[in-house]
């Protein structure tokens, strides 16, 4: 038994010995994570606790660091896309589209209107998935399992739409430089329309289950609040920032992919607590649905990708029969395409904040330097401050309401 106790020389034992309560009672140190089922991802926090209350926290990150920035420096542009999938894997199409838009900005490619609208549709679907996962898991963490099971079938429906568009479900690798790889099939639109009919009913019910639920309100209101000033200081973006009352949204501030054509509002919260974050996400789902409807109604006819044969792989049948296609195919695969020397920063509104790509090129086919501005890497540093003084069970709720995705945190 004595072997299980901390030896007096252990650094934790020293901390416990040195920092006592005023009345002399002992504090304890708790290691939360890295692999704990309640943290939904690989997050380690070493907590200094007084009973159930957290006094200090020290987060450790990097458990699933995969060196994407280094790998990207050794890959041609079109192969970098599969790395972006694996950052925020709850909304990978947003990351994919953001990457293509960065490359298009570098190469000055004008994407046809139809492709831009289709991109908006798929990005908003991804945003719905992201918010749906975050909010329903928040429900699970507060003890409401039903809502999660109920809405999760709609994530499945969205994945079926992805599957119809690009063949993949989770890590989508969707699109190409200049647009999409192929025209969306009629079945895609069928699935999309069914989704638009069925999902709002379910989402309304999900909202009703939670928003006025006594237990949920008690667990979330005034839990982990953050002021607007602090949120800016800590580099918050996305729903977490808007819950604190600031209406900053990249879709409006710097519209990309024709977002200026759509009419939507930015929901904001007031106190920046867990409940506000939940409500802002709920409201954003309705806005996303409205954007999808508008995009479908206004969807123009036309080509699905820009006419940039230097960067867009020709159809395989043509490569076998057509000299020109064969040449382009060869040039793209062997990396003999012209790439300007430039510096680009392109940002989109990701599922949990401003997702930015800072790209520097030197004229070769690979990025010279590619930096991912990962929103949750930046705002997760506020976590120790947010849980200070909270209960242990609140810490779990705050973590899941922040929508920190381990893949994006560690890149």
């Amino acid at each position, binding site marked *: 038994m004595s072997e299980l106790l901390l030896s007096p020389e252990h650094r934790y034992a020293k901390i416990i010995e040195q920092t006592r309560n005023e009345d002399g009672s002992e504090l304890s140190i708790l290691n939360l994570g890295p692999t704990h089922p309640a943290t939904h991802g690989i997050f380690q926090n070493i907590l200094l606790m007084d009973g159930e209350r957290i006094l200090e926290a020290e987060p450790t*990150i990097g458990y699933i660091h995969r060196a994407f920035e280094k790998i990207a420096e050794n890959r041609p542009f079109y192969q970098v896309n599969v790395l972006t999938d694996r950052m925020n894997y709850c909304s990978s199409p947003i990351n994919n589209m953001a990457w293509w838009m960065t490359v298009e900005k570098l190469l000055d490619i004008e994407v046809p209107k139809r492709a831009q609208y289709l991109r908006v549709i798929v990005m908003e679907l991804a945003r719905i998935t992201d918010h749906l996962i975050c909010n329903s898991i928040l429900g699970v963490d507060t003890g409401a399992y039903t809502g999660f099971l109920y809405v999760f079938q709609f994530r499945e429906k969205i994945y079926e739409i992805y599957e119809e568009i690009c063949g993949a479900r989770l890590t989508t690798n969707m699109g190409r430089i200049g647009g999409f790889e192929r025209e969306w099939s009629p079945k895609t639109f069928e699935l999309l329309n069914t989704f638009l009919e069925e999902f709002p009913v379910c989402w309304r019910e999900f909202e009703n289950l939670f928003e006025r639920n006594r237990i949920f309100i008690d667990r979330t209101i005034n839990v982990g609040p953050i002021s607007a000033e602090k949120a800016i200081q800590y*580099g918050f973006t996305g729903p977490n920032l808007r819950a604190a009352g600031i209406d900053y949204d990249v879709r409006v501030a710097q519209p990309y992919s024709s977002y200026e054509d759509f009419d939507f509002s930015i929901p904001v919260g007031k106190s920046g607590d867990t409940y506000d974050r939940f409500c802002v996400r709920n409201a954003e789902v309705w806005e996303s649905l409205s954007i999808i409807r508008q995009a479908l109604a206004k969807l123009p006819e036309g080509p699905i990708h820009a006419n940039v044969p230097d960067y867009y792989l020709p159809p395989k049948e043509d490569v076998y029969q057509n000299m020109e296609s064969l040449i382009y195919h060869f040039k793209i695969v062997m990396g003999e395409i012209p790439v300007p020397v430039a510096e680009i920063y392109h940002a989109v509104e990701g599922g949990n904040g401003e997702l930015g790509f800072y790209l520097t090129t030197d004229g070769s086919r690979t990025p010279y330097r590619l930096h991912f*501005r990962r929103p949750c*890497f930046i705002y997760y540093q506020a976590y120790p401050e947010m849980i200070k003084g909270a209960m242990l069970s609140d810490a779990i709720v705050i973590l899941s309401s922040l929508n920190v995705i381990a893949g994006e945190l560690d890149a």
Partner: protein
Amino acid sequence: MALETTIIQEKLTQKFGEKVLDFCMSKDIFTFEVVPSKLHELIQTLRDDEELNFNFLTDLCGIHFPENDENHQFAVVYHLHNWIENTRIRVKTYLTADPEVMSIADLFLCANWMERETWDFYGINFVGHPQLKRILNMDEMISHPMRKEFPMEDGGRTDKDDRFFGRTIINQ
């Protein structure tokens, strides 16, 4: 009324003179360079000046240029954003082979982890940082893996040839 780039340039040259240089539009973002000794003061001016008002640090990252001269071996790139006028700027500072620059973690709390990340991957020393230690790599690591001389893969591999993966002697 958007914040004109000429106003930014005028204000900064008035205050810093020769210390800020190379003003240019790089695609859609106004970019300039600052000498490392003035960096902290410059960022503070950009943040606190009532007219400039760059209230948000969007991004901070390092770059390694092993082929540059000895005073331009590393760069630290700052992206700042003025949310009221909706203007972005990019500030760059070039460092020597023994890179060292003032930390701005006291101006923006979010710079804390971004600087730790830059230290971790490039070995750029941020003077005055409250807790400059590795963040994504393990503490026992000695090298700084994003430097260009650090190989991505085990050098013993013979099945992969650099010529087929983008970089040749000609296009480097």
